[in-house]
């Protein structure tokens, strides 16, 4: 199976899996090797991969993807509350409800394309957010968020064993998923690898080719006799299922869900992740997700204290101005740094981090006659 053109894909999958499974070692030097953050890397990686199946392949920019994430999370937490603390049924429920919801939203929104589609999805997501925030309070517990409580029924668990004192943890047949520890991370990591594999298959399949064709010229597709709507809807639902899966995992590793998970900023975040990493690439969205989550969690915790520690070797007269300048960009200024990084990447590397990596790669591997491999930033019309 290694002697066909798909060999590179297998290499990619193997490399990707190795990197993901070794994250606890690889991330140690940059201070991100703790389960909670690595779980977030994987979960948002899944979210971004799913988003990229829609945006990267069909060019349909959904601005409401966080709604599916939220629906998945709520479904999973309700599964914990009503049935069992096992993670599998919760994740299945999360994916199922997200898919069902995506069918409804997709059916309505995909009647339009371009900016209208974006606005429609945004409106849907904002509607969901407001519903979760106030109208559906009995179902979502509003702004406070849906939590597990001691007097939840948990009917399936109740059949098999006596409830222990205190809240139970989410488990996977005895392995504790929530409450810290590496088991939760490895569940997310393996799910991410599976999702990556599925995405790869979709990218390389005739179905993926159809989606690309829709992106390059939908009208021509129609003239040749294809009905594009089912393809689009399928892509939208798959992408929604990925988001639901991410939401389910998020609830499994930390069984609490608040409405802010569905806010438009959360939807915008996944767009940023995908663009930052590289639209339409396989690995890019995962990289983008990791970069953004790293900024959010690690950069926001730096302060003057830490800066003084790093720059302590400089004489005071130089150190102090530098620290006071840099402190604008760390701590609560992490958003500013992210904005600057994002701008630089969009301006100089329109293909995202992946384009940067490819350029570096080509710099060292330039062979004569291989000029075609140089990536050219492909400008996409805004449709």
């Amino acid at each position: 199976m290694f002697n066909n053109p798909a060999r590179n894909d297998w290499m990619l999958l193997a490399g990707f899996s190795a990197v993901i499974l070794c994250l606890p070692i690889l991330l140690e030097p940059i201070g991100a090797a703790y389960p909670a953050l690595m779980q977030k890397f994987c979960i948002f990686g899944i979210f971004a991969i799913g988003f990229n199946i829609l945006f990267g392949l069909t060019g349909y920019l959904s601005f409401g993807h966080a709604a599916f994430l939220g629906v998945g999370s709520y479904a999973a937490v309700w599964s914990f509350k009503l049935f069992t603390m096992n993670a599998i049924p919760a994740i299945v429920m999360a994916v199922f409800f997200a898919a069902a919801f995506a069918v409804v939203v997709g059916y309505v929104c995909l009647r339009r394309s371009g900016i209208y589609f974006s606005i429609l999805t945004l409106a849907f997501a904002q509607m969901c957010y407001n519903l979760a925030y106030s109208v559906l309070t009995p179902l979502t517990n509003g702004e406070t968020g849906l939590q597990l409580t001691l007097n939840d029924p948990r009917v399936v668990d109740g059949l098999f064993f006596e409830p222990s004192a205190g809240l139970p943890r989410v488990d996977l047949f005895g392995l504790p998923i929530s409450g810290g520890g590496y088991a939760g991370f490895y569940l997310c990591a393996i799910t991410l690898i599976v999702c990556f594999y599925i995405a790869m298959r979709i990218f390389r399949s005739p179905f993926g080719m159809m989606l690309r064709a829709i992106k390059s010229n939908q009208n021509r597709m129609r003239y040749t006799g294809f009905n594009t709507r089912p393809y689009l809807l399928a892509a939208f639902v798959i992408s929604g299922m990925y988001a639901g899966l991410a939401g389910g995992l998020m609830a499994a590793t930390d069984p609490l869900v608040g409405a802010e998970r569905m806010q438009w900023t959360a939807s915008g975040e996944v767009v940023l992740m995908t663009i930052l990493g590289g639209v339409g690439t396989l690995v890019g969205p995962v990289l983008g997700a990791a970069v953004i989550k790293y900024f959010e969690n690690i950069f926001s915790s730096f302060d003057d204290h830490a800066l003084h520690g790093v720059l302590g070797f400089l004489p005071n007269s130089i150190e102090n101005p530098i620290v006071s300048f840099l402190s604008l960009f760390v701590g609560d200024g992490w958003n500013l740094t992210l904005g600057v990084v994002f701008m630089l990447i969009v301006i100089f590397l329109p293909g995202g981090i992946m384009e940067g990596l490819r350029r570096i790669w080509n710099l060292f591997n330039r062979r004569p006659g291989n000029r075609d491999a140089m990536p050219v930033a492909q400008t996409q019309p805004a449709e």
Partner: protein
Amino acid sequence: MKFEPMNRRLFLKTSAIAGVGLAAPMHFIRNAYADDMSCNVPTGDTVTFGWNVPLTGAYADEGKDELKAFQLAVKHLNGEGDGGLISVLKPTALKGNGILGKKVAYVHGDSQTKSDAARDGAKRMIERDGAIMISGGSSSGVAVAVQGLCQELGVIFMAGLTHSNDTTGKDKKRYGFRHFFNAYQSGVALAPVIGEAYGKDRRAYHLTADYTWGWTQEESIKNATEALGWQTVAAVRTPLGAADFSQYITPVLNSGADVLILNHYGKDMVNSLTQSVQFGLRDKQVNGKNFEIVVPLFSELMAQGAGDAVKGIYGTSNWDWKLEDDATKAFTKSFGAEYSTPPSQAAHTCYVQALLYADACERAGTFYAPEVIKALEGFEFDGMGNGKTLYRAEDHQCMKSCLVVQGKEDPKDKFDLMQVVKVVPREETTYDAAMFGGELGPSDPKQC
């Protein structure tokens, strides 16, 4: 790439990869610790606290002040600075040389006034930085979320600014402790004062921040004022962090209400109060009476934000730097010396929480969480600015006096915006611990 049919070689390869993948996590699950260890008990010569405060969002001002107070508390615990309240706390086991001989270090994070971000931050502090105690929070929604997490991970949570009844009521946890007062106590303290000022025959209109704190405060104030004989015309929920309240204020004018009760805090309260005043509500006459505005939970920081709008407005406060006791003077002095502003009530409660936790560790003689919890439960102390105070064992809520305050008509400077109208004694604000339901849960140690 084609979908290859499954053959024996492919099956073997796939299952080998899957096997390695599944076995890898076992390598990383840490060995169980000895029996007397709870999560993150320090083994080196430092002990790490985690400050999880909002530096962005609707409660950012309070969060920044809280962080200052925490940093000051760490200084004092390590024996630097003037020692602050350590010398005034009675009884005290603190020696001003760290805790149990270990230096205190701290880490902090931005909770963004969002549950998810706050839980992420707390997890970072616990899992990566080895924090043994988490404190902070300027929103009850966030406090409840982080408290739940701390219970799950077995790390003590010393709640900062959180005023909802749920924090030590419906959602109370064995690992969570609150020094700040709550909405019920606000209602009990405030009702007699506004009843006297505005009369027994009033019609109230509530605007309420739409989350756990707003709901419980609305309920508590409603109950307290209705007991006075007031009527409640309507209670409208507003989203947290809304910048523009005009759409909510306009209906108030035509509702026939003559008192507006703003269950808002932080920037929300600054905006809603300023806009209500700009709409001319306070110059109105309704039902033959002057239209009044009440802000049940009030703070100096918000008064600074709202400027002239706060003049004459009644509210309650956990603590105020203008009180006359020794503890208040000592704290205001050392906070002022460090940051050249007087401390807010948020800063005060966070500082006190840090000291109380440290003191409990000293008294327990260990950092082992179940023992520290025992040391805090039922602890009676004095000299923290609120008179004699009890950390009630049944719900982990502090029983102490609280204040009714009013916006000053002619402030001297921007720190002198509120005057204390009445100090409501502990006897009056004490309530039945079982009133709000909820269950503390077990205190068994967790390995993390």
